[in-house]
């Protein structure tokens, strides 16, 4: 029996490789390639800082994802609370000793790299809540205690990020958390009432917003209000996307980005540039790749035996979907501008690190799909 297990274990390593979701892997590689090509275009058709850095990060984090996927899901399950606590500590550290850039303290200096803990929190809050609800009995999910506790788990990091200040990321953290609550089986009426409540309290919230945030909301409602100021980003982004047409202007030929009309083209507005150069067809193709990725993530969840893995995969897939939707709606002028990167595509190490950790855990759930967690 013992020997059998050992033999099995040896075999297990290769088996795990065989068990990786290759469709998901290939899709991620394609996405990485597209993002590198787009980054190359933002650098004006040359391998400059952004392209090089993005490439290095992609390679490191992709390898890391595979390593993570080979580690038993049980390990990640056990890490749930601890990692949440560490990130929370990092957020507190950020507030005190963070690096200030463009008016907000978001980064901490880890000597070999600057990291943005708020991005990591988007993933680890899912991990933490998934672990929390995994243990819970069905009838306890809607108990007052459980709701309160889970809301505190969401609210603490969210408020820590808000005071950085970084409204966009804190909203995304909250959304990630709420998604887990939804999947965990929280009563529909809570969502309904809180929705109602937030709509009613919206004017009060708006009055509490910082002036630049208020401006963004107003600008979203009418971009032509101040076409050279606050509305500039939305207008230029729409022009870039719209002028792309069906087939796009061609690789490296996006005039809007090339001539620097596009703001933040490396990060939040990367899709604009992509869409300008590759047009409607390219954009739909990109959406298709994202859809496949999300589908695979959810499928892995569906095939997993453990509730934790399912909950994590569903929530992670849905969160990724929401990030994509928010980012695209923003650049297409459907939502006000909040800082939210497009997963994998956007330049930014922390965001990619978080996303890749997420995919790693999902993949781990795939390789250990038969693993049940007590």
């Amino acid at each position, binding site marked *: 029996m013992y020997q059998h297990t050992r033999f099995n274990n040896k075999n297990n390593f290769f088996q795990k490789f065989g068990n990786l979701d290759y469709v998901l892997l290939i899709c991620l590689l394609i996405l990485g390639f597209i993002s590198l090509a787009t980054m190359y275009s933002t650098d004006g058709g040359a391998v400059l800082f952004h392209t090089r850095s993005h490439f290095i990060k992609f390679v490191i984090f992709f390898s890391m994802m595979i390593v993570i996927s080979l580690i038993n899901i049980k390990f990640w399950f056990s890490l749930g609370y601890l990692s949440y606590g560490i990130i929370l500590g990092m957020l507190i550290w950020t507030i005190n000793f963070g690096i200030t850039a463009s008016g907000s303290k978001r980064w901490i200096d880890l000597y070999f790299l600057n990291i943005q803990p708020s991005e990591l929190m988007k993933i680890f809050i899912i991990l933490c809540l998934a672990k929390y609800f995994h243990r819970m009995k069905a009838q306890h999910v809607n108990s007052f205690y459980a709701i309160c506790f889970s809301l505190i788990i969401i609210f603490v990091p969210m408020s820590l990020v808000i005071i950085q200040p970084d409204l966009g990321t804190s909203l995304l953290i909250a959304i990630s958390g709420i998604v887990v609550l939804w999947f965990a089986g929280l009563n529909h009426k809570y969502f309904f009432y809180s929705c109602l409540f937030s709509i009613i309290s919206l004017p009060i919230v708006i009055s509490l917003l910082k002036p630049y945030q208020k401006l963004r909301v107003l600008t979203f409602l009418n971009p032509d209000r101040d076409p050279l100021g606050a509305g500039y980003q939305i207008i230029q982004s729409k022009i870039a996307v719209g002028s792309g047409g069906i087939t796009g202007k061609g690789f490296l030929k996006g005039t809007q980005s090339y001539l620097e009309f596009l703001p933040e083209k490396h990060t939040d507005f990367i899709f604009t540039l992509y869409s300008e150069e590759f047009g409607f067809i390219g954009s739909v193709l990109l*959406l298709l790749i994202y859809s496949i990725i999300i589908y695979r993530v959810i499928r892995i969840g569906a095939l997993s035996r453990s*509730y934790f893995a399912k909950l994590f995969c569903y929530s992670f897939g849905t969160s990724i979907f929401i990030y994509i939707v928010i980012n695209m709606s923003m650049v297409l002028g459907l939502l006000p501008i909040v800082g939210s990167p497009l997963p994998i595509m956007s330049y930014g190490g922390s965001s990619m690190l978080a996303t890749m950790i997420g995919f790693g855990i999902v993949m781990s759930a795939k390789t250990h799909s038969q693993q049940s967690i007590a």
Partner: protein
Amino acid sequence: MINISDSATKLNSLNRRMFILATAKIIILGGIVSRLFFLQVKENKKYLTLSDKNRIREWKLPPIRGEFKDYFGNTIAGNFEAYQLHIIPEEIEDFRYVIYRVKELLELSEKQFKKILRKKNEIKPWETLIVADNLSWEKFSKINNHLYDLNGVKPVISISRDYPYKENFTHVLGYVSQANENDLLTNENIKEKFVPGLKVGKTGLEKSFEKKLIGSNSVERYEVNAYGRRISQLAFQKGDKGETIKLTVDTKIQELTNELLKEKAGSICIMDIYTGAIIAMHSSPSFDPNAFVFGISQDEWQLIRNNPMKPLVNKSLSGNYSPGSTIKPIVALSALENEIITPDFTVQCKGHKNPLELYGQTYHCWKKEGHGFVNLRGAMKQSCDTYFYEVARRLGVDRLSDTAKKFGLGEKVFRDIFDNEKRGLVPNTEWKKNALGRNWVLGETIITGIGQGFIQTTPIQLCLMTAQIANGGYKIYPKIVANDDIEYLDKFTPLYKKARNIKIVQDAMFSSTNEIRGTSYRSRLDDPKYQFAGKTGTSQVKKITERDRELDLKTFEIPYEERDHALYIAFGPYINPRYALSIIIEHGGSGGTVAAPLAKELFKMIIDRHEIRKNYDNKKYLDI
């Protein structure tokens, strides 16, 4: 067991909710795709236009101005290549070093240097800074020799206005200078073609023909980035040069008029008596219009402005003068036409001792001793004032003014070509009643008879009047633009009742120049080829008092401002006349001694040049 059923419930709820969300996701995805479709397919055209508007910007270049040619095709206002020095500040590594080096090489004064630095601060770093707009060849080549040291400095050759004959044509052509706000407001055409550094006509023909001369801008289309920096040139659309305008003037004669009027204030107008073509028209003193092209310095400007001889006034067109005795041919003609007198009508001129007396006012002849008994011919010859007092008294001012107006006095000669042309004034009883509200008095008629009083004429009007007497009394329309082919219906209609009357006046003018005791006898030319007939005039600036009459001062003894204007009108050659002229020397003294001698010089050249002009018309020169 409970555990299993519990986890089953949980899983059920999880999967159910996943299904709900998946449906929602598909709907949302559909929404994004449709938004993309809307922007990229449906509204594509709109955004493509906006994108092009973003990235493409046009730069207008100054148009190349049309030229002015004289009758023989010589360029009298052309374009030359100005040597300029441009710097684009951002392309220079060490701006301070370069600009000091340039200052050293060009020997710029502190003031000029400061002006350049101020200009530099006003523009964006990628815009062109014009350090020097008109360098001499020496300095330009000096810069070129030191280019290795002046990274980013660009020697540029740009097209600019040039007046090769300097002050000769200033009052005819006017001058160009930087367009200012006023030019933009008043002229749509300039506004449309405006670019910084555009030069537009400020006076004269340069101003009147702005629309034809200005040409059209060349357009450079550039791709620019979000900050307005040019990235690449997409297209270059060459503009058209402005029209070239050929004038009727003869540069050689114009230069002579300038020579003759040197150091004097006055005007000379010369006209073809059949075509009305202006052969020369000069107002003195003049100034060099080239000084205005790149902006005149304050000192130079003050010098021109404060000159008591008024170089800025075009005396040929805007100088209103009393015609003095030069009006006498018209007075005589009017009297003959109205059959007030016959050529044999005689008046006794008794000199200063016995002036003509009327209602207590005395009217003196210019000659102290008097002329004795004079008929029309004699009176014109010696310019007897007493005779014309009497004729004017009999004629009346209204009939006189009718004739004068018929011959072109009191009206703009060039209609609307020159905006500074004055109408002059031919008074009559009705005019005085309307303008001054008082009745005409006989004394005013009498002095009008010798061209004093209210009557005012411009030199060009006198020239036209002479021309129309010389051509036998036919109406002509003066022109200065050669191919101005406006057909006037009343061109060449007779202005007389009896052709013989014109002949009598012409003959009287002949006697004045070519017979002994004629006022301009000393300026005559005996060769029949050049022989001309004229009439002198001396117009008083100030009323002559009894004291003045007793003193009888020489011209140079009187203060400049109080000296008489000297006038002369003439036509020639006497047989088969072809040209008429008018000369006025402000405060020059008597017409016979100052103005008439100039006519002698002029007619020699005018008639010599006539052959050349005729041959040029027949294109004989082109056949060779």
